[in-house]
């Protein structure tokens, strides 16, 4: 496993930008900034307004990441789990789970909790606890990184 440095100041700055992004999206077009819903909305053959604003958001997300990545060196510090099969299983579970549960870290974790949604508070507690248990089992019981 890769050791990462605890970076609270960068965390606070990044978190503030994420919050600002969520507030802007709600203030202007009245939408929840949930990566799950926005991504799901692109998997369609109906290219209407509901598709188009989501596409614009994802284009912004990609440009914002690429541009910031240029001066934070994010591209070089990124580190993945070593087994590609685990990445495939992870991707399948994340895709199916966020679709069934109707949200992820951004939609439930940030936007849902911020509007005091009981569903989001519960979903966030569930995915946090399950993810912590998963990492504990993978790293400390099975001993794989």
């Amino acid at each position: 496993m890769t050791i990462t440095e605890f970076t609270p100041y960068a965390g606070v700055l990044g978190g503030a930008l994420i919050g600002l992004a969520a507030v802007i999206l709600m203030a202007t077009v009245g939408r929840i900034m949930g990566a799950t819903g926005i991504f799901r909305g692109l998997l369609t053959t109906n290219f209407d307004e509901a598709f188009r604003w989501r596409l614009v958001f994802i284009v912004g997300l990609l440009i914002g990441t690429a541009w910031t990545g240029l001066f934070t060196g994010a591209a070089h510090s990124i580190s993945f789990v070593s087994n590609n099969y685990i990445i495939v299983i992870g991707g399948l579970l994340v895709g199916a789970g966020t679709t069934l549960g109707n949200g992820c870290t951004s939609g439930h974790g940030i936007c849902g909790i911020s509007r005091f949604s009981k569903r989001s508070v519960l979903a966030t507690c569930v995915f946090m606890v399950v993810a912590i248990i998963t990492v504990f089992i993978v790293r400390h019981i099975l001993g794989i990184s």
Partner: protein
Amino acid sequence: MRKIFVLLSGLLFGAGLTISGMVNPAKILNFLDLTGQFDATLIFVMGTGLIITTLGYQLIFKRGKPFFDTEFHLPTSEIIDTKLIAGAAMFGLGWGLSGFCPGPAIASLVFGYQQSLIFVAAMIVGTLLARLIPVTTKLD
């Protein structure tokens, strides 16, 4: 005008995920690893994000409607059911295995690593499979 603000929101989301290091799966996994390589950064990201969004939402909702739309598009369901809990649990399992959730996974595509591409491709398949289950909620 609408689209410029949506683009700005996306830009800031991407910048925030990148500056905070949340695009790096290793940082997520170390946050989840409470008894091992614990890295508490995620709590600072989420905490700050929550404070700003909660305060911002209060102001916006008081206004009654968004600037460039006739209404807020908010989820109306308040039902706590098996689907919500099972879905969240599946997501937690996938997140804990891979260190990726949807936003950072998509964002990380710009760095050009095959792992990002594999994950997002699998995520698309997972999403489409879940859609075959008739109880899946339709998007507005």
